[in-house]
């Protein structure tokens, strides 16, 4: 079973870009304050 309508146009389409999955950088940890004994 194909298409009943005759071909009307022909185009060349480039390959789709590969899926880009954004990589989230780990959040920087805030440096903990150093407790100095009094």
């Amino acid at each position, binding site marked *: 079973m194909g298409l009943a309508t005759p071909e009307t146009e022909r185009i060349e*389409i480039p390959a789709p870009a590969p899926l880009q999955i954004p990589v989230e950088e780990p959040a920087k940890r805030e440096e903990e304050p150093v407790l100095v004994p009094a």
Partner: protein
Amino acid sequence: MEPVLGWRIWNLRDGGLESWAMDYCWEPGENLATCLAPHRRRCRRSPGLHCQCGFWAVWTPGQCVIRACSAAEPPWHVMGLVVGWGAVALHGKEGFRAERAAIKCLFTDRPWSSSLAVTAPSGRIARWWHHTLRRAVEPVITLPAHLDQLEAVAAQYAVPLVSLRSAADVGILREFGVHPTQIEEAVSLATPSLEGM
């Protein structure tokens, strides 16, 4: 230029998605068309001129359903979305034939079929329904036997399996680039959802 997006139907057979017209089982990811025309010289590159080779799809879900309804014996038909690229032959307002194609998603809906039988509960179920919910007996949807097979095949092809309605509601169709009029058409074709039951 973006790949063309179209709707089509496969036969679900032996855990794979088989072409309607030809003896070809779709591969996960990219598929490369070759001419399988019998009794004639095969095209050097699909889609050939004056041939029906290539991966075909139609532009709208409605056209897709009409095709399924026109089939003499629709056995295990599955509807889905595909993208096509490479050499692409456009066939007016009907659809296209592409040299390369990949499945984007599959749908649980079978708008051409009565396999989602809506039946009224009876006997013990009806009494439980009435007693527990204090509501009149309402129709329930019988789970289709092939839902497990659909889930397996979607996993094999690594594509989402969704209902038309949820694909529209959560924005999957829009994200794939389906035109808003087609999304409306898809929703109008949606069969009763099994989700949330």
